[in-house]
C-alpha cells in the first residue's frame, strides 16, 4: 500500500513568488492534515480536511495560505506571495480514524 506522498520534496523560491505544495493521501483516508515545522521548533498544525471540507483551519497563519482538497482526494497548499518566514518543512498526514495519522516525507520550502 502506498503511503502519503508529497511533491515536491524541496522547493526554493524568491520572496514574493507563489508556490504550490501537493499531497496525495493514503487511498481511502477521509482525514487529511497539513502541518509545518519551522527550523528547530515544534510541528504546528495548519488545517484539517474531512473529505473535501475544511474541518478546522485554525492553524493557517494568514490569508496568503490557501488549501484545497479536490474531490476529497489529493490536496494542495498554495502560498502566495511567499515571505521569508514561510520557510520550513511542510508535512501532510492522512488518517482513516482520528487517532492514526500517517505522515508524508515533507516538503522543505526555502524562501530567499
Amino acid at each position, binding site marked *: 500500500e502506498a503511503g502519503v506522498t508529497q511533491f515536491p520534496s524541496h522547493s526554493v523560491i524568491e520572496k514574493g513568488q507563489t508556490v504550490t505544495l501537493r499531497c496525495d493521501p493514503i487511498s481511502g483516508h477521509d482525514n487529511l492534515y497539513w502541518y509545518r515545522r519551522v527550523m528547530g521548533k515544534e510541528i504546528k498544525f495548519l488545517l484539517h480536511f474531512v473529505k473535501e471540507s475544511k474541518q478546522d483551519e485554525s492553524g493557517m497563519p494568514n490569508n496568503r495560505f490557501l488549501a484545497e482538497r479536490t474531490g476529497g482526494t489529493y490536496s494542495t497548499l498554495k502560498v502566495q506571495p511567499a515571505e521569508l518566514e514561510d520557510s520550513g518543512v511542510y508535512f501532510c498526514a492522512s*488518517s482513516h480514524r482520528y487517532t492514526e495519522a500517517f505522515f*508524508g516525507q515533507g516538503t522543505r520550502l526555502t524562501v530567499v
Partner: protein
Amino acid sequence: QQQVKQSPQSLIVQKGGIPIINCAYENTAFDYFPWYQQFPGKGPALLIAIRPDVSEKKEGRFTISFNKSAKQFSLHIMDSQPGDSATYFCAATEDRRGKLIFGQGTELSVKP
C-alpha cells in the same frame, strides 16, 4: 502558547543506555498521547501511543510512562541502539478532533 513542552532538546547516549524524553501538557481535555519517530529526510512515524487511563505502555524496547495528576508523560528506550538515532516528538490530541499538538522534538544520538 506552548501546550506540550518537551525536554531535552538533544540527547546523546552510549549504545545500551536508556534515554528518557519527557513531556508535559496543560490541556486536560487531551485524551491521546502518541510519540513519533523521525529519521532525516522522512516524515514522522507513529512509534507508540497511550491513553490517560493507563500509567504505562510497553512495545518492544519502547515504554511510555504516564502521570495523569502531574500532566506528564515520558518515553524510555531500553537497550538503545545506534539505529534509534532520530528525532522524537511527543504529541497530544483531543481524540475526537484528531489535531495533533506536538512538543518541540528531541534529537537523540546513540553512540556505538
